[in-house]
């Protein structure tokens, strides 16, 4: 069974150049046998009487110690310039924000949303919110008004922090329908904000607030974060995470990302999604390292320059970005001095083996793929530094995590034995649904207001991930596909139902079916098939009108990139859109042979 070979740069052998630090987890098997979440919990600072608060672990703990004057966050401006915030400064800034919320009368457990790019105020608001016991929920700035409204309403938002541009473009029109949204705080130009009614000036409130605040003594099970995710049907789901999640954020930062004191860490994910919060904000801070945050979007030379100039040592990025870098050519990577880099990890969608191998060529080290999802709150399965990378594999379960493969029936539900237990796959390489044994600290504790939907995620004592996988003879897991119709585009989950609903709101559309179309860069792109209302003729004009209509409502990240007209959209007898059939047609597979797309074929 033992198939672990140490990489050439494993525990005893120096890695690239001068950066020969020993891995935090030198031996996977040994770590698995020894690991306990209780021990991981004991490494936290904690608060008196068993209280636990993410902001204390991420900020105040270090601001009180030798790291006080260490850079916690370094922001790289869109058009040049940097702003450094030390742990001591971050404590004061987050205290100010906590005081602002208190003065506005916002109470514990109430939700504070942020809709912005990667600006310092986002990070300060996130941690300040946690500090006073409120709940933080991020929104992706490329969402259109519709996804924003849905999430603010479902999350019962009390406070929204955003910018004047985003407010005017996307939020002002929703305001009267969001009765519970009591306070909107805008970050930006004072004069511009003064002209907008019904909002506060973030900077002015912060300037008037005190810079000390005693961290709220939240219980480990108190709600801390809400991350929205999409399913095949229905509205988005608000996955609830609690303060105890920080145990897993910190442990995975050590074990998987191999963060060491003095590291410069760059997580390229946007905090609008779970990776950008768990690893773009919380995990590196709990370990006292310095994070680099780029306010600009992807640009190949800019990214290489950041890796070089900031001396980034640990880099956590995504397959879409890596594939874009790969297209530009390996020689570009070699123009830069990337000698500080010692570990690269990737998440978002499966990393194809070509990219892993290209990473060897470009950076002189493999790219370590890992797997997790919004509901798991943190990394669950990974290729570790001290283990051989299997290109194309998501790796092996984290110490403390029990993962298995469940057999599914024709409807795609896991098969339960007579005693209520799950029928698990035991032979290697047999496909099934990835399931995890509940109980790790960052596991979601519910979907906001949707207890039944939450309960349906569990069967036979396991959490059902919805992802289809196989496990090889050595225990490495391999991603096969989604078990449902959810689309994975550029690492983001998109619910086809949300997109179909938006299209159906157009009077020319009779039926709509939405699928993920394979794409060499984004993994999948959103593609819509629509049939038209009587009397409406398909044509270029209407196609563009529908594209624009969907984009205005949903935003660039969610709207379809392609629309095809069809005479009818296939539905089954119960009226469900048969997306698998649409996908088979799109991929040129015989329509009678859609079994090849079925999970249990």
């Amino acid at each position, binding site marked *: 069974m033992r198939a672990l070979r140490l990489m050439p740069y494993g525990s005893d052998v120096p890695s690239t150049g001068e950066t020969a630090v020993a891995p935090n987890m030198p031996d996977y098997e040994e770590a698995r046998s020894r690991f306990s979440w209780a021990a991981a919990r004991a490494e936290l600072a904690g608060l008196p009487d068993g209280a636990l608060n993410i902001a204390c672990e991420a900020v105040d703990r270090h601001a009180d110690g030798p790291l006080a004057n260490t850079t916690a966050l370094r922001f790289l401006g*869109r058009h040049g310039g940097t702003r450094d915030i030390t742990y001591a400064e971050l404590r004061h800034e987050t205290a100010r924000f906590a005081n602002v919320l208190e003065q506005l009368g916002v109470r514990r457990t109430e939700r504070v949303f942020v809709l912005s790019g990667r600006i310092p105020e986002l990070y300060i608001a996130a941690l300040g919110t946690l500090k006073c016991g409120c709940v933080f929920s991020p929104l992706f700035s*490329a969402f*259109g008004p519709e996804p924003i409204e849905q999430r603010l309403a479902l999350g019962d938002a009390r406070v929204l922090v955003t910018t004047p541009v985003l407010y005017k*473009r996307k939020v002002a029109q929703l305001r009267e329908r969001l009765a519970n949204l009591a306070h909107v705080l805008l970050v930006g130009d004072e004069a511009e904000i003064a002209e907008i009614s019904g909002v506060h000036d973030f900077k002015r409130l912060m300037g008037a607030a005190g810079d000390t605040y005693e961290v709220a003594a939240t219980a480990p099970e108190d709600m801390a974060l809400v991350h929205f995710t999409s399913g095949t049907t229905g509205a988005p789901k608000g996955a609830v995470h609690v303060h105890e999640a920080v145990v897993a954020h910190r442990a995975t930062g050590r074990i998987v990302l191999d963060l060491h004191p003095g590291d410069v860490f760059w997580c390229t994910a946007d905090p609008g999604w779970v990776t950008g919060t768990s690893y773009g904000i919380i995990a590196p801070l709990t370990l006292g390292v310095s994070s680099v945050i780029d306010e600009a*979007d*992807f*640009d*190949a*030379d*800019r990214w290489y320059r950041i890796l070089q100039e900031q001396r980034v040592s640990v880099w956590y990025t995504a397959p879409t970005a890596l594939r*874009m870098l790969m*297209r*530009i*050519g390996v020689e*570009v990577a070699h123009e830069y001095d990337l000698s500080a880099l010692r570990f690269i990890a990737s998440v978002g969608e499966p990393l194809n083996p070509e990219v892993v191998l290209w990473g060897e060529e470009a950076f002189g080290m493999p790219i370590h793929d890992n797997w997790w999802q919004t509901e798991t709150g943190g990394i669950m399965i990974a290729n570790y530094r001290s283990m051989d990378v299997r290109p194309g594999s998501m790796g092996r379960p984290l110490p403390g995590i029990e993962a298995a493969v469940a057999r599914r029936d024709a409807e795609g539900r896991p098969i339960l034995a007579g005693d209520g237990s799950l029928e698990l796959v035991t032979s290697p390489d047999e496909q099934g649904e990835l399931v995890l044994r509940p109980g790790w600290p960052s596991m979601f504790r519910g979907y906001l207001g949707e207890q039944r939907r939450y309960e349906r995620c569990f069967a036979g004592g396991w959490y059902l991930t919805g992802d289809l996988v196989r496990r090889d003879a050595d225990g490495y897991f391999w991603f096969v596909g989604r078990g449902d119709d959810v689309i994975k585009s*550029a690492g983001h989950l998109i619910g086809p139902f949300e997109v179909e609903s938006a299209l159906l709101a157009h009077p020319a559309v009779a039926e709509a079916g939405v699928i993920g179309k394979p794409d060499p*860069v*984004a993994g999948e*792109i959103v593609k819509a098939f629509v049939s038209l209302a009587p009397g409406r003729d398909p044509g270029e004009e209407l196609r*563009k*009108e529908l*594209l*624009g*209509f969907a*984009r*205005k409502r949903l*935003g*660039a*990240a969610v709207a379809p*990139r392609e629309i095809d007209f069809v005479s009818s959209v296939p539905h089954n007898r119960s009226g469900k859109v048969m997306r698998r059939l649409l996908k088979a047609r799109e991929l040129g597979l015989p329509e009678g042979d859609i079994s090849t797309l079925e999970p249990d074929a």
Partner: protein
Amino acid sequence: MNEQELHDVVIRALTEVAPDVDPAAIDPQTDLTDQLDIDSIDFLNVLVNVHEQTGVEIPERDYPKLATLDDAVAYLLAAQPRGAGTDA
């Protein structure tokens, strides 16, 4: 193609990929992705479309050089094969 024609090419590509964009509202000197609701995949599709219309090869590494409308037109003007026709 002359400057005006190239300007029209870029606008056509933009409204093809993102029909919600109002060409009249574009500030020619501000980054397109900053002022419009387009993401990096849209931007890539815009430049692919520009290439199809003009035949001008745009190495992906040069994409940031076409970040604003003015920059894009200037880039295309300089990159056009000398004396090239418009039958790309």
